[in-house]
């Protein structure tokens, strides 16, 4: 588990975590959950949880991480971004490029070493190029793969590329005072443009084939998928814990006050002397980077990424999770993402039993989306606070917004 970050401040102050018991509780729950899964998993424990389910759980943790990022940008700052799954996908692509390059390099090197004459570096590079880009009728490495051979640089790309994209796009959008529904549509357009670009064969990222074989981690060929999946599960849990603490820190205190002020009345915050655009840009970019990190952890567990994952619909689903979970509270986003994505895979995976109606049989694989859509409408209409709102009522903490400023 992450070390508990503490804020040392004025004398006699309580630590950040002590001031925010809900963060404490969340971290505790996450730690218990991780421990439980570890004890029951195939690689490390009783084997009651299959490796594929460990992967599902690990992926769900990543989705929870991107959901809290979405919650911060939407629930706290009021920017309904329909582009955060695009940042998630970019993170996946960035790490996927290294995974695919390094893995292909091993294969190519092995096969070339079998020949009598040892290969030159150029031959190895050419071989990798043919392997990776043969599927789109090319063998040349596009410029964007320039750093693919370096794990460290490509990790940097996970942060830099979405960070810069969010910075530039956010600067353009916020500067021209595009707000509300307009901004949502603009972010949706950005997402669509990105996914359409990636769908092209000459985008340099294998068009609609995407990147595949990402579950094979170079350097860990001898380690079984059981162990790799539990490793990623742990990494995802740590990332979620750290992300939760980071965002809890951001949305508490004065920063949280300003950000929520922007959500409720942007002009007023401006007349108080705050440069609203900088704050929006800060939140937008920070959440984009966290979304990308979540994606970089998600896709090695998923094994494949393609442009369809970036399409606007994915980002809209992200908003759906956060809304169902309950906006404006971080644990709400976690609950929403975990609940909806797990229930969704239960229904679409054929886990839910069909319903016999005499003349018609409801097959949930067909009807799940109808149910989801309608329940989403119901949540918006009747439970605007989402599942988290019910949770709040249980623990009698009706105003999470006022939390932390006693």
């Amino acid at each position, binding site marked *: 588990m992450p070390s508990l970050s503490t804020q040392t401040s004025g004398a006699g102050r309580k630590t950040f975590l002590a001031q925010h018991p809900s963060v404490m509780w969340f971290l505790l729950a996450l730690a218990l959950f991780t421990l439980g899964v570890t004890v029951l998993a195939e690689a490390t424990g009783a084997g009651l949880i299959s490796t594929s389910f460990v992967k599902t759980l690990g992926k769900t943790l990543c989705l929870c991480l991107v959901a809290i990022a979405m919650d911060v940008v939407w629930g706290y700052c009021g920017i*309904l971004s329909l582009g955060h799954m695009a940042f998630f996908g970019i993170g996946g692509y960035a790490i996927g490029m290294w995974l695919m390059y390094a893995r292909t390099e091993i294969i190519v090197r092995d096969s070339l070493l079998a020949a009598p*004459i040892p290969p030159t570096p150029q031959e190895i590079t050419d071989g990798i190029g043919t392997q990776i880009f043969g599927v789109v009728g090319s063998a040349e490495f596009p410029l964007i793969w320039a750093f693919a051979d370096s794990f460290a640089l490509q990790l940097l790309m996970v942060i830099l590329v979405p960070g810069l994209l969010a910075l530039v796009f956010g600067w353009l*959008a916020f500067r021209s005072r595009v707000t509300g529904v*307009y901004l949502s549509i603009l972010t949706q357009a950005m997402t669509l443009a990105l996914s*359409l670009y990636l769908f092209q064969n000459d985008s340099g990222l294998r068009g609609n084939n995407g990147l595949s074989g990402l579950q094979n981690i170079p350097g860990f060929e001898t380690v079984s998928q059981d162990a790799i999946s539990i490793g990623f599960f742990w990494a995802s849990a740590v990332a979620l814990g750290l992300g939760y603490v980071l965002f809890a820190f951001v949305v508490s205190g004065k920063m949280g006050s300003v950000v929520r002020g922007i959500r409720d009345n942007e002009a007023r915050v401006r007349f108080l002397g705050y440069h609203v655009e900088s704050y929006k840009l800060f939140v937008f970019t920070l959440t984009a980077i966290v979304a990308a990190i979540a994606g970089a952890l998600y896709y090695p567990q998923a094994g494949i990424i393609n442009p369809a994952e970036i399409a606007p619909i994915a980002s809209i689903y992200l908003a759906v999770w956060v809304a169902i979970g309950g906006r404006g509270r971080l644990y709400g986003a976690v609950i929403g993402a975990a609940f909806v994505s797990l229930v969704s895979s239960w229904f679409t995976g054929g886990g839910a039993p069909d319903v016999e109606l005499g003349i018609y049989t409801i097959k949930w694989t067909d009807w799940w*989306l109808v149910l989801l859509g309608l329940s989403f409408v119901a949540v918006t209409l009747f439970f605007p606070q989402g599942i988290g709102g019910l949770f709040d009522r249980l623990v009698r903490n009706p105003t999470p917004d006022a939390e932390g400023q006693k």
Partner: protein
Amino acid sequence: MLRAVLAALVCYVLALAPNPLLAQTSLQSLLQTQKDEVLKPSRASVGAVLDTLVASNLPGVQDFLEKWQERQVVLNTEDGLFYFATGAQGDTLLLQDIDSGASLQAPKSALTDSRPNGGVRKEIAGALVRFQLSGPDIEKRRAAVEAIARAPSADVVGLLQASAQAEPDPALKAQKQRLAQILVARFAPDSAARIAAITGFSGALSLDIRAMLNQILETRPGVAPARPNANIAEILQPGSDALPIAAAYEQLVAADLAPPMISPAQIKETLAQNISAGAVAGIPLAQLAQPDRRIAAYQALVAQGKAAPLVGPEDMTKALNAHVFYLAYIEPDRAITDAARATLQDIETAVAFNKGADLALDALSLASIYFLAAIGLAITFGVMGVINMAHGEFIMIGAYTGYVVQQFVPDYTLSLIVALPLAFAVTFGAGVAMERLVIRWLYHRPLETLLATFGISIALQQLAKNIFGTQARPLTSPAWLDGAWVINDVVQISYIRIAIFVLALLFLGLILVVLKRTRLGLEVRAVTQNPGMAASMGINPDRINMLTFGLGSGIAGIAGVAIGLYAKVTSEIGSDYIVQSFMTVVVGGVGNVWGTLAGAGMIGSLQKGIEWLNPSNTLAAQTYMILFIILFIQFRPKGIVALKGRAAGD
């Protein structure tokens, strides 16, 4: 004019009259004179038979040639006569007398087929063309002209010109003359006649003429030590875009003017063949992972005479510099290629101009589709500040309504007339229901409306999949909407697109009338500009919102029928248009019909323009368009037609 027709008629009658000299001879007797040639024709010698037959002017010649070409001519060895085979009954063949047409039978064993091979049949076809070109059946004459156009050859020029003289149908006559001119331009022996024909086509847009000129201007690449004495089209510089260095050198190698390159792969192979004791030419294998050591090892092999010498970059440059690379016209006559080039340039200018017009038409029709798809969205957004994410699904509902109506009303025209108002009614109802049940409760929370309507959108889309399946359903347009209005070979527009354009105009007018001339429109405009004030003046905003939403949705239904007519109806038909519709509204500016029109016009022409610049890649076109829109918003955040002052609500 009358005289010309009369003259043509006289010629026609003369051509049909049998030659009195040969009138007594029957076709059978004529065939008997060349019995062996008819039975076993060869390409080289069949010409004589064909000439005799054609010169005889007998009425049955054309029929015989056609049957012969189709391998239906048989020789009965019992009486030594030729017959047409018309069918078989067990071991007997049904025959027909060549001259009288009388039916008879003969056992198969007694018959020998005449089996003209492919070459012979081509000759027969050539002979047939003259009959068909001036035969009585206009369809056959047309077919013959088209056959010549498909496979132009030098020898039919005169024939075509003669038959054009006699052609009674003015349209076909013009077509024949034109084709004859094309043939003259390509094949005439006299270069002055060719040049005259070529320059005569100046400004013509049709594809066949452009193809003909391009054939005259066909080039082949060549290389020589010095500039050859040929009709040179262009001298190429190695290393330019038209002739990369590698291609130039390959050309040299192919012409045996330079030794072939040794590729890295060949080097590697040669090295692999010469491994001895873990080394090649004394260089250990492990070192051969370095490119320069490989070269060294190869050079050592060359010195030992075990490999062909390498071609270095200097050798290559030297060889390239020592030769002239050129494109030469296959046509040797400079005057003709010059004329063809000038004419082609002329034509291409005209083509570019017309393509511009065609592009504008395309953009206009795309814009009308976007306008239809977006105007409902714009109205609801303008009046209620609500973005309806399910708008695309209303388009889908409209399209499926059209499809369902066609299942019950088989007449396509009638079904369209039924489908349009029905689609409006269905989506109007759906819109009103949605407004009453969902949106009404979410006013002043626009982002939540966006998400709630998105929930409806996924539910409706999946519902459509469950009902209609995932495969595309056809919405067939009536026959009178098939085809296209062809202005010339470049500019044309399909009738469906014209119909959609008209529909868009109709709705533009209708909406303007409703908004500007009716009480409802007045109230809608009042609510758009200041809902609080409108409410205090006795306007019931609830009713206005409901009606507006219904109207916006109803127009989406109409748009759905229109779009379904030319795109396949699937559950995703709406989502294909929804983002463009959003863009149209955003670019155009909220709450203004003219803004939507301007937005649709801009997005439509932008998309077509970018597609034209980069025709191979519509995905890239859409990407660039969206990027452009994001930048556009920078300069006009409120759209093209923006409300100003306090009404803008900021």
